[in-house]
């Protein structure tokens, strides 16, 4: 179904139509299309694996499309590599942070287009220009600093600054805010406003509904690699978008809370302090049976460090962990797992998945003991357990022998959650479990958390998305600069209150 | 090829090869016709120049005699060479000429040859007489291993007596250094034993300043010589190298330090009489070298094999001495100086 006639399509800055792209075993794009106007923000929405990133990568020359047509400013184009696209006025903020950690900020900004003087790279110019861009965009980072020494959010801001600095006619933002603080998000939006007024066309991919409502002019929804709908943002309701994305109607973003936390304290963390400074300092809290304890805080507030330290991934200098009334020694994940702790890590690619290995391997690796008879492995049980994960988590995959890297981010995440559920954890720590995951999958994860808690399991739920914390948690612990700034009960939940706590130990 | 065409004057083995061609006729009834004979030649390492000449001599002689041959490289790996014996046997060769990687591997190889009933002639690396005597169809051909060292030392003593300027510090003692080929290499070890033996028996006072291993390699020898020059300087009066290649490396170092100009001279001795070595001799850098007659070593090896194939006495047409108890054929080595350098050049004709 066409919503734009051939005639009209000439007026668009960018037209992508009938784009097909097949990966081994996956039809990632199936006659996908996207029309972007000058001076507008076009939101691209869809579930995990819907093909949003792939579509943009086909535009940007990272992938070669199998068929279809791309018109840019009315001319048919086909970029074969990112350089091509950049040279023609298309830039992109990538979903993954693509930076050279060993080098400094300005080298990363100018990579691929270093300014030269008489054949040599002009360091001074590079510095000055970077400074200018940062001043314009209000980014307080020294251009000579090494990327590795920066926080994730600073790095993401640098990526954004870089994409903007190309003075491109089209800028693609693929989940640019996944690790930005509220403040930085507003900052980004200011930048986008400015770009819009200068006639730049933008594609904005995000799973955060609030952002989409705030910033976009038009919305295109994709499902299973195909175009589903395009319309004016102002005319679309949130629920409508969601049901378009998932292909059925969804009444609410959060499931009804069914768990009843008991008064039993299962986990007591006392004055936990990490080994390598800067780190968490004297963090104390209690977690009850059947409770979902949300953990809020700004990026860099060391929420990740808190859960990783509890899990034994990081060394602690002092502090006690009391589990079910007894102090437990947890110096590494092995001890944590044997105490029925589980940790869903924040960086999926880095320390979550085994990319080249099968789904079966990924689902079963953390509890091999369950499959061992006299230290030999019982393959049958592995197969059936993996099938349980695929079914229970609704993982989209041809079979359990597929390499996990062939799945979309969301489906990978489901496998990893399934892995931990197979461990039947008593304490489940989830670090940004819904990051980069579509609404449908998010809802399922919330439901799952609810169910687990109802069965008396306890959950630590780290998130940067305030609405989901408020929607799902029983209490919220707020971290600030490595310290526990406060803990709020469900009836005290309030965004501003949380933000106030989050800023408590800053500076 | 060199070996065959060099004719009958100086090289007994080559002469043998020629005679053999005519003599092969009457043997016909007893053994396979020459044209049907096939031998395997196993070389311990193609990259070794010494054995390359042996191979050249051997192959040329085989060609002249019309015997088919198959040559393989052991790449300095005994396990590999032992496997190659199997391959050769599968290829149905009639006999094997083996330049061993490790002399002690002879036992295993003889065992294989015994099973296949093949004659085997070892060349260059020497198995013990004990081992050779366990099988009637095996022999050894090689240069005397200690002799080059002995000859080197003898040359020094001769020069020392003739040329008083060699005693640079005038203390009547020979201060020398040795550049060693390789630790544990039987040629290197034997050559050094030979040197020590002759020097000790000479009655002249000697002092070995240093002895280092350069792996038969010119550039390593050069680096070592650099070090010695800075450490001992003019104290060094004589340089003994286990082969010419290393001697040439040392000479480069000496040249850079200003030697061989005017009366800043020094005595360097090599072994092998390779072509570049002979040239250095002509140019006055080398005082002497020892001709280890590789070509004859090769032709003789072939001749012994041929005799076995033809079923005649093993010494037929061989002019070199044979030690029956140990089954060794010895190829004499020759001291080479300017005055008899043509003998050495002739080897390469």
């Amino acid at each position, binding site marked *: 179904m066409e919503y734009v006639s051939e005639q009209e399509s000439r007026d668009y800055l960018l037209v992508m139509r009938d784009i097909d792209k097949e990966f081994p075993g996956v039809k990632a794009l199936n006659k996908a299309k996207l029309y972007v106007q000058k001076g507008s923000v076009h939101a691209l929405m869809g579930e995990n694996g819907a093909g949003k990133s792939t579509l943009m990568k086909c535009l940007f020359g990272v992938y070669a499309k199998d068929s279809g047509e791309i018109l840019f400013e009315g001319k048919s184009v086909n970029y074969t590599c990112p350089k091509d696209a950049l040279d023609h006025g298309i830039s992109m903020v990538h979903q993954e942070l693509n930076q050279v950690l060993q080098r400094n900020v300005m080298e990363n900004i100018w990579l691929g287009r270093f300014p030269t003087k008489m054949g040599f790279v002009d360091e001074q110019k590079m510095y000055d220009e970077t400074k200018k861009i940062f001043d314009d965009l209000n980014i307080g980072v020294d251009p000579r600093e090494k990327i590795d020494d920066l926080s994730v959010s600073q790095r993401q801001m640098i990526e954004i600054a870089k994409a903007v600095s190309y003075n491109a006619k089209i800028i693609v933002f693929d989940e640019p805010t996944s690790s930005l603080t509220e403040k930085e998000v507003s900052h980004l939006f200011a930048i986008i406003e400015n770009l819009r007024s200068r006639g730049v066309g933008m594609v904005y991919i995000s799973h955060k509904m609030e952002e989409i409502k705030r910033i976009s002019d038009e919305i295109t929804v994709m499902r299973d690699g195909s175009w589903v709908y395009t319309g004016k943002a102002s005319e679309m309701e949130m629920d409508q978008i969601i049901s378009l994305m998932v292909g059925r109607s969804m009444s609410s973003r959060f499931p009804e809370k069914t768990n009843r936390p008991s008064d039993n304290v299962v986990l007591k963390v006392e004055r936990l302090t990490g080994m390598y400074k800067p780190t968490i300092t004297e963090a104390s809290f209690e977690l009850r049976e059947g409770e979902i304890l949300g953990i809020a805080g700004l990026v860099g507030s060391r929420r990740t460090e808190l859960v990783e330290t509890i899990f034994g991934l990081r060394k602690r200098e002092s502090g006690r962990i009391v589990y079910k009334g007894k102090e437990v020694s947890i110096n590494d994940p092995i001890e944590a797992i*044997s105490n029925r702790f589980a940790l869903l890590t924040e960086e999926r690619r880095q320390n979550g998945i085994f990319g080249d290995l099968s789904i079966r391997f990924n689902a079963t690796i953390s509890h091999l003991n369950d499959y061992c008879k006299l230290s030999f492995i019982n393959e049958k049980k592995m197969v059936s357990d993996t099938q349980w994960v695929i079914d229970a988590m609704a993982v989209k995959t041809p079979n359990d022998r597929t390499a996990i890297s062939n799945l979309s981010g969301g489906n990978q995440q489901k496998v990893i959650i399934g892995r931990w559920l197979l461990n039947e954890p008593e304490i489940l720590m989830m670090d940004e479990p819904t990051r980069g995951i579509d609404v449908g999958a998010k809802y399922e994860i919330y439901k799952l958390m609810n169910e687990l808690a109802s069965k008396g399991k306890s959950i630590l739920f780290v998130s940067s998305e305030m609405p989901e914390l408020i929607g799902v948690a029983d209490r919220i612990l707020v971290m600030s600069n490595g310290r526990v700034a406060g803990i709020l009960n469900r009836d005290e939940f309030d965004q501003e209150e949380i933000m106030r706590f989050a800023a408590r130990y800053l500076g | 090829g060199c070996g065959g065409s060099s004719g009958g004057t100086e090289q007994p083995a080559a002469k043998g090869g020629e005679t053999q061609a005519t003599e092969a006729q009457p043997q016909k009834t007893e053994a396979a016709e020459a044209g049907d004979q096939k031998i395997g030649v196993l070389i311990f390492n193609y990259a070794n120049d010494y054995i390359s000449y042996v191979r050249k001599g051997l192959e040329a002689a085989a060609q002249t005699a019309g015997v088919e041959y198959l040559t393989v490289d052991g790449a300095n790996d005994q*396990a590999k060479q032992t*496997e190659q014996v199997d391959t050769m046997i599968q290829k149905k060769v009639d006999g094997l000429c083996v330049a061993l990687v490790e002399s002690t591997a002879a*036992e295993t190889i003889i065992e294989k040859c015994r099973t296949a009933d093949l004659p085997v002639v070892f060349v260059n690396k020497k198995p013990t007489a004990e081992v050779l005597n366990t099988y009637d169809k095996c022999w050894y051909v090689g240069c005397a291993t200690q002799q080059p060292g002995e000859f080197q030392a003898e040359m020094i003593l001769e020069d020392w007596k003739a040329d008083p300027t060699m005693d640079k510090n005038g203390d009547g003692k020979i201060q020398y250094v040795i550049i060693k080929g390789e630790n544990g290499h039987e040629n290197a070890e034997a050559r050094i034993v030979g040197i020590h033996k002759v020097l000790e028996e000479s009655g002249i006072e000697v002092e070995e300043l240093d002895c280092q291993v350069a792996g038969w390699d010119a550039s390593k020898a050069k680096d070592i010589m650099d070090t010695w020059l800075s450490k001992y300087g003019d104290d060094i009066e004589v340089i003994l190298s286990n082969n010419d290649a290393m001697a040439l490396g040392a000479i480069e170092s000496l040249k850079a330090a200003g030697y061989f100009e005017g009366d800043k001279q020094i005595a360097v001795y090599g072994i092998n009489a390779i072509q570049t070595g002979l040239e250095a001799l002509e140019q006055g850098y080398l005082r002497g070298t020892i001709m280890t007659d590789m070509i004859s070593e090769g032709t003789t090896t072939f001749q012994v094999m041929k005799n076995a194939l033809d079923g005649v006495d093993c010494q037929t047409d061989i002019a070199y001495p044979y030690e029956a108890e140990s089954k060794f054929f010895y190829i004499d080595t020759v001291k080479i100086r300017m005055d008899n350098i043509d003998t050495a050049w002739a080897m390469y004709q």
Partner: protein
Amino acid sequence: MKNTNTLSKDRLKKIVMNYAIYLILLIVVGVIVAVDPSFLQIGNLSYICTQASTRLILSLGVAGIIVLGGTDLAAGRMVGMAAVICASLLQAVESSTRVYQNMPRLPIFLPMLLAVALCVIFCFVHGLIVAKLKVAPFIASLGIQQVVYGLFSIYFQGLANGSPIGSFDKRFTNFAQGAFHLGPVRIPYIAIYAVICTVIVWVIWNKTKIGKNMFAIGGNPEAAAVCGVNIVKGSLVIYILAGILYGFAGALEAGRTGSATNALGADYALDAIAACVVGGVSMRGGIGTIKGIVTGVIMFQIINYGLIFIGVSPYVQYAVKGSIILIAVAIDTQKYLKKK
């Protein structure tokens, strides 16, 4: 129309990729047979299998380390060390060249055990340096290689002033060179040992926790740590296994050759790595199968044997082997490349 066409082309490409190594093998064998049809005797096959035995045992050890994401340049020198140890302690009592003249006749397993123990120790240290200190495996194994070579060469040098050690105890020779006869077929013990080692390693890789952990560590060490895999312990087990295999391979190599020097094994590491990688073990870690390793090793052995059989000059052999490595690995790599 067009669609089916591209599909069959794709399928063809896929088949070529998946069976590349077999195709190459077929071509090589084809060429060899064309030059000398007598290559197709059963005897040749038996020799090739026998010759491949120690290499296979060695490669099985190296492969585990590669799957862990490492590499082992020291493997060959370890084999050399084990060979020299066994050789020096297992000479025939009556031999005049015996280095330990007054030592009683030892049971053959004792020196072999000692050789294995030494290899295990060095592999253990290597594993610690890589897994605990996180030193890049290439350079760690290079360092180990030089240390091992230096140390056992000093021992070797001290023994017989560095001349090769031979004249072994008959039991030792028989252990490595013997065979039993199954009707008309001669089955060498050494091939049996190789088969046993292969089966054991296959079981370890595929049916035990040790193997799963190995793939996990090689596939993504950080994720493995989160999943409760003890990286250091899990790696060390594999290094120790490698040490055992090296030690055994070295003992067999000495026995099979009938002599040993410190030069033994000089190129074995690179050959073994090449065989593994040609057999599909990925240098990036986390990928590899026993079947592939066996194929890789036998393929190289066929090439070695076949090229000699048809009388190709040794330098040409280098060029051919190098090209085959490049072609086979280039094709194999394409399998894992993310399509653009």
